[in-house]
């Protein structure tokens, strides 16, 4: 093996600490014997995966990503949890309604996110928020299934895509382009 780069070594250290924490959590014994066994097996796993670890945690430097803003993420997660609660209440209301007032549509749009992390953030957030599921994601082009008219509005009005963009940039401009709402099978 050639010489380790700094990011690679850091990745291995982070993985080792995570594995050891997981071991301690699962075993629940903190005496010398069990802890040493944990250290040995975590080190073995890290060494066996040594060439993999190049691409684990510190991808940012390797691919020129904009660093994620941690403060914004801490604000974003409670907002997302609140959205999940709203989504579930909405779905509950629709499911329990005797006539089921659903009006499904498919929304196709493109984004200009520079990196994969933002794309995955948006895709998972869409799946978790009111009445929308990400069907397909290809190079920043999304296909989203919306259960009701109200639920698609969060994307049409660019509310959520902007919030995700704000995780990476200070002043996000317009994010969504080529938006198309499909309401019948013929238009697919």
């Amino acid at each position, binding site marked *: 093996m050639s010489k380790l780069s700094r990011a690679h070594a850091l990745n291995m250290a982070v993985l080792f600490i995570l594995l050891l924490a997981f071991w301690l959590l699962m075993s629940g014994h903190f005496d010398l014997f069990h802890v040493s066994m944990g250290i040995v097996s975590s080190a073995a796993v890290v060494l066996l995966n040594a060439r993999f670890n190049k691409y684990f945690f510190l991808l940012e430097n390797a691919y020129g990503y904009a660093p994620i803003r941690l403060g914004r993420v801490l604000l974003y997660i409670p907002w997302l949890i609140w959205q999940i609660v709203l989504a579930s209440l909405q779905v509950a209301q629709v499911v329990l309604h005797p006539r089921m007032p*659903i009006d499904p549509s498919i929304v196709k749009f493109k984004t200009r996110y520079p990196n994969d992390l933002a794309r995955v953030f948006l895709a998972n957030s869409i799946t978790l928020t009111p009445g929308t599921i990400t069907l397909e994601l290809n190079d920043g082009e999304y296909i989203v299934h919306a259960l009701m008219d109200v639920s698609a509005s969060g994307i049409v009005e660019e509310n959520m895509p902007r919030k995700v963009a704000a995780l990476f940039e200070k002043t996000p401009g317009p994010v969504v382009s080529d938006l198309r709402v499909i309401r019948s099978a013929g238009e697919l």
Partner: protein
Amino acid sequence: MNWNFVLGNIIVSAGAFFLLIGSIGLVRLPDFYARAHATGKSDTLGVMLTTFGLLVHEGISLNSLKLLLLLYFVALTSPTATHALTKAAYRAGLKPWFKKDPPGPRGCPTDIDACALDDLLELKEDD
């Protein structure tokens, strides 16, 4: 009567309610994509609430750390699994149901393509 016991029970009951909603939605909604909404959201919140309620009930211990790990894991994997299934369905050509569409043959809620796909995969229920 401890306060954390009562609070935990209330949260767990709310979680069980959302699990029930997920089940009913899975049976009542008209097509696959709409059903994915029911499992992808209601079930996720149901499991998260029940786990969180038990966490409140348990207090701070090794068990509650494990429950926290479970909470994190469910929040991470549940939307991923839903997305993987819907993507597979979309790529296989399963058409979603729209309000304007007429009901398909054999009580199939989507149009003819959904039933044709079913025949192709040889998973028909009758004969």
